[in-house]
């Protein structure tokens, strides 16, 4: 069951690398915010699974709205002359690290619990 998301990631990478469509270089910046947002959603989803409060609707809506809003906000910031782009990068970066830390904690706890159980 863990293999399916990994498989999905590989499929996504293959689609992304085979597609020949090019976006203008000006929009690469917004695209990178969307990438961060999606990574954040992936780790957030894994964390919520481990913490047993996973909700598919929350994950999917969060994924799309976060990516879109981040890109829009970065664009708006550029129009206004404020680098909101960095705010988005910072916010998502911090969240990704927090999620990763939470995942690590959970995995270690699970591992220890399993070990304790097997010892008994």
């Amino acid at each position, binding site marked *: 069951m863990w293999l399916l998301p990994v498989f999905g*990631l590989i499929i996504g*990478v*293959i689609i*992304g690398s085979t597609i020949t469509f090019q976006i203008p270089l000006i929009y*690469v910046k917004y695209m990178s915010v969307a990438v961060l947002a999606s*990574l954040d959603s*992936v780790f957030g989803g894994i964390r919520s*699974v481990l913490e047993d409060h996973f909700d*598919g609707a929350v*994950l999917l809506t969060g994924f799309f709205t976060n990516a879109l809003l981040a890109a829009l906000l970065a664009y708006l910031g550029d129009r206004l002359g404020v680098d909101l782009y960095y705010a988005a990068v910072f916010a998502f970066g911090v969240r990704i690290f927090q999620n990763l830390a939470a995942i690590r904690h959970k995995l270690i706890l699970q591992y220890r619990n399993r070990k304790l159980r097997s010892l008994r």
Partner: protein
Amino acid sequence: MTLTSKWVLPITIVCIISGFFLSFQLKVLANSNTTNPLSQRNTNLVVIIKDLEEEIANQEMLLEQIRNDLANLESRALPGDLEILQNGLRDARIIAGLTPVAGQGIVITIDDNNEGLKSNPQDDPNKYIVHYEHLLNLVSELKVGNAEAIAVNGQRLITTSEIRCVGNVILINTTRIAPPFVVQAIGSPKHLAEIVTNGELAIMKSTNYPITLVENDKVIIPAYRSDLQFRYARPVKGSE
């Protein structure tokens, strides 16, 4: 089982899209590193300029050929008054600079002060390159010295010729010329040499530009090759 399958599908979807974004972004960035759009544009412009210059050279060759044919046709003996008109025309052409001319004169060669720049690499390079003002002053002094025909790097100077700075090259007759600059002038060699060595050349020598001045018994100066048409100027009636 139902509990585990609940989260597998959404996470898989998110993973697919994330993977897509990731590889797409990586690919775009990898492409943008290899082809800088600005340098791409510059190379395109350079190619366009080179093509156009080649085209100009071809057209000028054609023009010169036609002018030669015209000269041959005109040099045939003609009856009566026409010969006087023809001589007048020939004189006018020589004055306008449309015919190659030869005669006594001087040849001045000036180049950038590369050695000076090499020994002072921290200094402003502008102090060591030949600027269009140098050529302009030199040409003006030659004109003061009654030079009858002047050419710089093979570009004949006529009444409409410009000497203009465009970045790191100089335009003369809308043709790019670059150092070393060879200034040919027909006139009294002694007189011309005297006037320039006491003027612009003295200034340039004092800042160590490499300069040579040769007095020559036969300097050949090419004809003006480009377009020469008056589209706006008309002779004033009654002035003749």
